[in-house]
């Protein structure tokens, strides 16, 4: 299974019936595809609505996702302004957000919005999402393209938010951050503990229920 699909499938398991969920761009948007049919979630889009669905038929005026791309509105959707959108986000009304990451560290700090001197796109809504969502899941590949670890003792890129990450899902492993400690919960099928150690700079402990990731093919 391709790394991204594996990650998306595993993240999907974190989405529970009735959850209000905000998905970052890129990999996170793949997650709903892998939801069990008996789990119904509501997708929040930070440009101002709840009830985002896939585009079906012709694009409708104003019905776009936070990337400005035409999408669908499911029955029961609700539109609002940006003030309400971020009141929902910051106020803990979003149960879970899934975002990509550049770096995460063992204290639950996340860096995903800029690389000084290289890439300064702006934080958009990411800082609010990470500060406000009840559960913050970072979905990313375990290492950079150059093979450098992304899960660090201490992020060296500018932070998006401090100590707010609840879970990290990569193609190698699942970590949680519990009481300020990084905990290895699962390794991916066929991945050894040693492989995870070799690709991870951060200190971590093994969960009591440490086990192998279970994802349907």
């Amino acid at each position, binding site marked *: 299974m391709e790394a991204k699909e594996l990650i998306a499938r595993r993240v999907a398991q974190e989405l529970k019936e009735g959850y209000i969920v905000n998905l970052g761009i890129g990999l996170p948007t793949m997650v709903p595809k892998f939801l069990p049919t008996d789990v119904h979630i509501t997708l929040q*889009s930070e*440009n101002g609505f709840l009830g985002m669905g896939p585009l079906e038929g012709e694009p409708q005026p104003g019905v*776009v996702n936070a990337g400005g791309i035409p999408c669908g509105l499911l029955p029961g959707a609700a539109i609002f302004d*940006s*003030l309400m959108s971020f009141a929902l986000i910051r106020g803990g009304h979003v149960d879970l957000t899934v975002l990509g990451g550049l770096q995460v560290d063992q204290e639950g700090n996340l860096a995903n919005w800029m690389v000084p001197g290289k890439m*300064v796109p702006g934080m958009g809504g990411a800082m*609010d999402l990470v500060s406000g969502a009840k559960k913050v899941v970072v979905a990313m590949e375990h290492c950079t393209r150059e093979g450098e670890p992304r899960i660090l003792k201490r992020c060296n890129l500018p932070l998006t938010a*401090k100590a707010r990450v609840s879970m990290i899902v990569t193609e190698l492993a699942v970590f949680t951050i519990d009481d300020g400690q990084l905990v290895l919960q699962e390794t991916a099928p066929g991945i050894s503990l040693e492989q995870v150690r070799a690709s991870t700079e951060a200190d971590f402990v093994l969960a009591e229920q440490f086990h192998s990731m279970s994802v349907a093919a």
Partner: protein
Amino acid sequence: MNKIVEWSEIGPLFRDGMSILFGGFMGVGTPLGLVAALHESKASRLTLIGNDTAAPTTGVGPLVASGQASKVIVSHIGTNPMTGRKMIAGEIEVDLVPQGTLIERIRCGGSGLGGVLTPTGVGTVVEEGKQKLTVNGRDYLLELPLRADIAIIKAKRADRAGNLVYERAARNFNPIIAMAADLVIAEVEEVVEIGEIDPDMVMTPAALVDKVVLSKEL
């Protein structure tokens, strides 16, 4: 009172050095006719305040490309490489503000509030130069009000009094910026008579809107 005006009345409203609040998110909900009018006005040294600089030819992108914007206060510039290039070249000042903080600051500016305490940005570069307060054991940044000389708004429909209705996610920043500018101009797709919009369905009350102009077919 009839607030519907002709396009010819719009250009003269724009002057060098003005601050402009604009609606829209990636260009959706941005009044493109008003952006074009700003472009044609050649008003320079503008400060643009809104969610993002969209792309070079969408949203407020043309005002970045033309060099009329000397400063932008936005949450995101990543989709418009022109903004990034001009920033690096020192041709435009970019003040990046988290999206939820930006909309709260604009609301403060329009609501008579002196500021708001938000957890967003605590422990990040966003907190630089800001007062930090602790409330019930949690740290917050004091974020200050933002206002502008003019707000340019896109709505679906207006009545002649200036009551506005937005369509879908094109609503975004528009109802909030309507509160925070000295002059509020709305570009609309449709004008109806006073009384045709149910009072419960008004999304921006006429009291906040100074001028309404009908979108040209683009």
